[in-house]
């Protein structure tokens, strides 16, 4: 899909504030709000915009740190396991990766007890071979819009 100026402005504005009104974007581009609304729907349908969400500060709702889980699995089972991991409450993002692990999951964590529970939940999934943990301290986010934490 080719992007034109309208698409680019929509993406840029909504990345900074997903609640920007279509009327405001329309006024800027001198087009009708319906045009913006149609484009937005198209971008969603095409899978370019995956989601719209609020960015919540986990420390304000009872979480104390972030942990990264590096997971090794039996070959050919990564999709199946990823689909399960993504349903764990508190996991923010998960993906297949190539390189150090087969899957990576990043989660907000309440305390050590919670951390062990998360680790065990993943370890108990069939075909999971190992789980390595990195606890994040002093996290700096330069592009939080790219990385929802």
């Amino acid at each position, binding site marked *: 899909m080719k992007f034109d100026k309208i698409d680019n402005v929509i993406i840029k504005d909504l990345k900074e504030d997903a609640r920007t009104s279509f009327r405001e974007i329309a006024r800027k581009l001198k087009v009708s709000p319906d045009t913006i609304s149609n484009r937005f729907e198209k971008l969603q349908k095409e899978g370019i915009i995956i989601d719209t969400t609020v960015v919540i500060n986990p420390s304000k709702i009872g979480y104390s740190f972030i942990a990264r889980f590096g997971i090794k699995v039996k070959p050919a089972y990564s999709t199946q396991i990823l689909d399960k991991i993504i349903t764990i*409450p508190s996991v923010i993002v998960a993906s297949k990766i190539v390189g150090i692990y087969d899957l990576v999951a990043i989660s907000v964590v309440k305390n050590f007890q919670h951390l062990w529970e998360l680790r065990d939940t993943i370890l108990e999934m069939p075909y999971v071979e190992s789980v390595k943990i990195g606890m994040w301290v002093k996290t700096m986010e330069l592009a939080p819009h790219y990385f929802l934490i």
Partner: protein
Amino acid sequence: MSGKMTDEIDVKVLRALQKNARTPLKEIAEHCNVTIDTIKNRFIALKERGVIRGSTIVIDPKRMDLGNLVILGIRIVERYSESVLNMVIKIPGLCVATKAIGEYDIEAIFLLKDIEQIGTTKEMIEDFPQVKSVDIGIFVDKPLLCPKNFEFD
């Protein structure tokens, strides 16, 4: 942890907006059986208290030709994590960098255009004298986000 937690209405506001950041506040008000002004005030208060840091769209970086997300695990000479972290955050393409406890001393996630840029970024970090090793993982497929599942007490 911060003292003041959210109440039931706050949680409903957060849940609705996590699912869809563009949910009209009117809709949330109807769902909670309160006035739209109540929801407006709650929304503003949640932002002021820093519970809501902002709102955004999640885009598929591959479809936008932005490249690949890459996670780097860095091991360093003891006591230098601060200075290495400060150098890492200056490297172009960085999304998030952190000191870590566990497998690595520093972990970072970058959005990098191609294999070549992945290579040069890795080398750049390996060149820091205090860096012992850099491990790399490249995200395949789009990362799955599940802010919808984010749990509240």
